[in-house]
């Protein structure tokens, strides 16, 4: 299975194919920015304006008229989407792992392990996207946090819980947008680890809340969010404005 994703591997050319499909002419939708409400408003009033000539910018890092960075479309859009979230998580846990005197010894040790997992996820995506569609690799993002984020155990745990539950909902919602089976399996291999992190952090905050009713519904289903839903939350922690409106689009 795993060699299917290997850049230059026997199946590399075939599997990477969807990634080489050029992103279609940027639609007006992309210029409208990430805010769904604003997009709808502008679309409804500017039907004839979608022939505006886009500025010539690298795909994947293209800056829309409102200054937002597009994650791209199709599978590469999904990979960049995951890469963006993993960049955020990795940065957060690196900062947590560097704290002292806030978490207990065991907690800090566990958070350092989580930090390693997230850094591995981030750099895995960087390498995988570089191998499959280097021109479309998302740039390094600049995370930002409320000033008191790393000053107390409660704040650290609260932020960690938000990130992990968000990550699970993101991967669960992105699965159906993926076209290449190998990428779907990779996403599945990562999301269960994120769910393990989420369960652990929830148990630290409220023992026994690993899969509480606020997260798992009456059908026994975890959350699954669209990229737009997820990015609305994630955007609060990212300096650059991210446009995920084309993620997974064919």
């Amino acid at each position: 299975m795993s060699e299917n994703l290997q850049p230059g591997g026997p199946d590399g050319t075939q599997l990477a194919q969807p990634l080489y499909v050029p992103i279609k002419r940027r639609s007006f939708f992309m210029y409208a920015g990430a805010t769904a409400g604003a997009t709808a408003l502008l679309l409804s009033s500017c039907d004839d304006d979608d022939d505006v000539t886009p500025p010539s910018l690298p795909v994947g890092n293209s800056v829309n008229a409102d200054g937002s960075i597009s994650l791209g479309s199709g599978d590469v859009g999904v990979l960049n989407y995951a890469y963006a979230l993993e960049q955020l998580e990795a940065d957060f846990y690196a900062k947590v792992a560097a704290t002292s005197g806030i978490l207990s010894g065991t907690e800090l040790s566990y958070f350092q392990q989580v930090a390693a997992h997230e850094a591995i996820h981030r750099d895995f995506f960087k390498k995988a996207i570089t191998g499959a569609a280097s021109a479309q690799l998302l740039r390094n993002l600049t995370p930002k946090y409320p000033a008191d984020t790393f000053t107390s155990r409660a704040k650290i745990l609260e932020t960690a819980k938000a990130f992990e539950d968000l990550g699970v909902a993101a991967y669960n919602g992105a699965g159906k947008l993926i076209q290449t089976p190998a990428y779907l399996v990779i996403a599945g291999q990562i999301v269960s680890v994120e769910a393990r992190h989420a369960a652990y952090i929830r148990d630290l905050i409220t023992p026994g809340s690993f899969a509480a009713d606020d997260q798992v519904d009456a059908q026994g289903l975890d959350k699954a969010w669209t990229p737009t839903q997820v990015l609305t939350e994630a955007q609060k922690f990212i300096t650059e404005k991210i446009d995920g409106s084309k993620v997974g689009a064919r």
Partner: protein
Amino acid sequence: MNFFEIIKQLAEVDSDVLGRLDSRRAVFSSLGTAAKRGAMAATPALLGAFFQKAYAGTSGTKVGTIAEIFKYALTLEQLEADFYKKMVDSSVFGSQSAAAQAAIRQIKKHEDAHVALLSAVLTGLGSPSTTTTTFKASAFPADWTGQLQVAQLLEDTGVRAYKGRAGDILAAGGAADANVTGVGTVNPLQAALQIHSVEARHAAHIRYMRSQTPWITGSGDLDGQEHYKGTTPESTTTQAGIDLLTVTSGKTYTTAEAAASFDEILTPAEVLDPVRAGALVG
């Protein structure tokens, strides 16, 4: 003893054997004679490879239908649901802490919900399940410690089992919404993923109850069990051809960190093998 003869005989009793079959057990039961079973048993190594081929969970080639995949999922959920029923009914349950009892009841609630949902979807698809899988009574530990061990193995295996069919669901058209009679709109792939991450939360909590890391590092007290091995063992540190140990420039991760950062799949044949869930079905 002749491997090709075995395949030929299998093909005679089931023309679909080279594609996909419902379960490994079905292969054995469909064999007509003890002689044939003997012939198969005589070539375990080749047979293992053959089954892995025939049942390759994420091969992306010939796969099952959504109904077949959901029946497989239902089998595992019924097994889990009955296991937790046995736990709650066990004579030792009442003497556990309130927190432990609540956790097991919460997990049981989810497994029961999974059984109900999968059953309803299968009925709505016109392919209702006619069997109820139970946890083998003789394999159920009398003591709490043993019960939690089995719970961990069941949950971690369940996580791997769902992951192992994700590619199949995609190939079967499960990424598209379906209007299922009596249930409503269902996206089979998304529903499977939503169950999958709940199983991972369960696994993490059971491991935590047992003073294990919530993730699989390879140094846990049960990590040597077959449930963590297989064609793609949980100890794997290379993903998609990328070495995770050295994926970050200027840094080398430990094997435990790299192995734990990605969970791994199990194929249906591996899950239903007697060394894993197969021996627990009663």
